[in-house]
């Protein structure tokens, strides 16, 4: 079985982020790392594709030929990677990115495509279903467990009330939520091996796409203004006067957490 995992390479959240003052988009010129949310997708894929002849391929779109984040996924155990890097991709919105990823994923001819529910730098959460739609594939979101049964997948799909059991033919796109699996640490041997694993470098033209469909040229979104988020308030201190438990329950109910 061939499983593709889409991996987003993002600026290290530990370093202070910055916006490009010209475009108001995130500055991605420094070293990029694999988005933490993709750890779960890679781990899930490695667990599903653990049999003889199975293979996990990573697909990523990033500026400047960046592979640092991909190497992390390769060190965890993925066999190879496809990287799409092209100046024409700067300023891509989610749909433009989806077009590029869909075209690249198709080259790997996968049985299953695994993605994180959303990235931790963009949080649009729209990309996976756009990719599925563009590829004409079914998609199942918010998977908390996946099992393969012949040519179908069975997914436990997280809902507010519990979970749904969804059976879906393959190939399909599945998004996984954080915490569904315990991502492995890349072993030192894996890190060393990742250095020599193949990374196919592609441009927009290689994918047969027109530059006008992607990047800022093809983007349907425009960032017109950026403002600082509101400073976080100090919160409410509840002094327990014998009714602490009830007040905590009332607070959580108000948030609809319970």
């Amino acid at each position, binding site marked *: 079985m061939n499983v593709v995992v889409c991996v987003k390479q993002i600026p290290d959240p530990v370093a202070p982020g910055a916006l490009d003052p010209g475009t108001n988009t995130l500055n991605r010129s420094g070293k990029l790392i694999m988005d933490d949310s993709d750890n779960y997708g890679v781990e899930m894929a490695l667990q599903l594709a653990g049999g003889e002849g199975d293979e996990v391929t990573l697909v990523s779109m990033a500026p400047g030929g960046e592979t640092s984040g991909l190497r992390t996924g390769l060190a965890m155990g993925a066999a190879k990677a496809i990287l799409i890097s092209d100046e024409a991709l700067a300023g891509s919105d989610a749909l433009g990115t989806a077009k590029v990823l869909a075209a690249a994923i198709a080259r790997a001819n996968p049985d299953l495509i695994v993605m994180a529910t959303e990235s931790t730098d963009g949080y649009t959460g729209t990309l996976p279903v756009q990719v599925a739609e563009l590829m004409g594939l079914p998609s199942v979101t918010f998977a908390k467990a996946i099992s393969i049964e012949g040519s179908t997948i069975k997914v436990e799909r997280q809902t507010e009330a519990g979970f749904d059991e969804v059976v879906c033919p393959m190939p399909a796109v599945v998004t996984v939520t954080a915490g569904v699996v315990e991502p492995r640490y890349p072993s*030192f041997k894996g890190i060393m091996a990742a250095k020599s694993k193949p990374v196919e470098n592609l441009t927009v033209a290689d994918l047969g796409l027109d530059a006008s469909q992607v990047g800022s040229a093809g983007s349907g979104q425009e960032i017109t203004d950026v403002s600082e988020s509101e400073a976080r308030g100090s919160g409410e201190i509840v002094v327990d006067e014998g009714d602490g438990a009830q007040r905590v329950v009332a607070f959580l109910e108000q948030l609809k957490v319970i």
Partner: protein
Amino acid sequence: MTTDADVRAEIIDTVRRFVAREVIPHASELEHQDRFPTAMVEQMRELGLFGVTIPEEYGGLGLDLLTYIGVIEELAYGWMSLTGVVNTHTMAATLIIHHGTEAQRQRWLPIMASGERRGALSLSEPDAGTDTRNISCRAQRDGDEYVINGTKAWVTNGETAGIVALAARSEEGISAFIVEKEPGPQFEGISVAKREGKLGYKGVETVQMAYTDHHIPAGNLIGEAGRGLPQILSVLELGRINIAARAVGVTRAAFDAGLAYAQQRTTMGKPIAEHQAIQLKLADMATRLEASRLLTRNAAERKMAGLRCDVEAGMAKLFASETALEVSMDAMRIHGGVGYTTDLPVERYYRDAPLMVIGEGTNEIQRIVIARGLLARALEQGTAS
């Protein structure tokens, strides 16, 4: 061989993440209970930590010393005791790499690299610490075996190790042997005579091991009989760089704790980090931390280049360990009362630091090693000119 810089950075970063998620949240609790970190050690084995410096042809990773000290610094940042599990193992493996026969390397290094068997180094005795020539543990040749009798002291990992690099006195003088045993308090003629209670460095056991008519094959002699001391002392050079790297990790942990607390804690209407008394401390702590790291790196680079580094390793061990002691105390002063409690790990850093001052050759001995090394080099230069 020098490790690729990207690979080195990725490995050290992986250990940093492992320590942040798996070690730091549990270290203080295990340490206070003096419990061996079984789960952490198993994860370390899976990462490949026991084969870092063992050559690839023997199942290791063949990574360079700079990678190794980076890994050690990160482990010590979380819990210094974890480095003890790796360091003694690595020194025993290094003894076999440098002084073992090809057959001995093939026999022991692969099982050490995988972590299947963990190693310990056993040099000291109750009456032979700094004075290693006073070693009285005997290895009596008996046909194709040696019979070991005596007591060894301060054996880190002595109980949990499966392979012990042992210094014992044979007819030819002090010789180095490999003793294979099953982990546990008793195996054939070997028994744990005493588990040391310690100020810090808890979790990992430090024991006295008694050998009573314990037989080992004559083929377990490492190198030439009677040459054990210089062989083991050459491994101690690596041990001193290890200790310096541990000290850098503990110092960094103490400094980070002090820096964070100084920004959170408010007195007289402002964070204490804005008081000059605290700023002076932070500046000195950070400067000494940086100097420790550079001295350690310098010693490692010299060793990697195949240059003599007794002086540099001694300097790194001396300075970094004294710095760990001072900076952990400074971090506690910044914290005030709360730093003295067991709620925060600062008290652990403070209790762990003296191990580095005393272990692997006391700092008094380091000064003598440094001075003698300097004088020897001066003499060599004088002869050359």
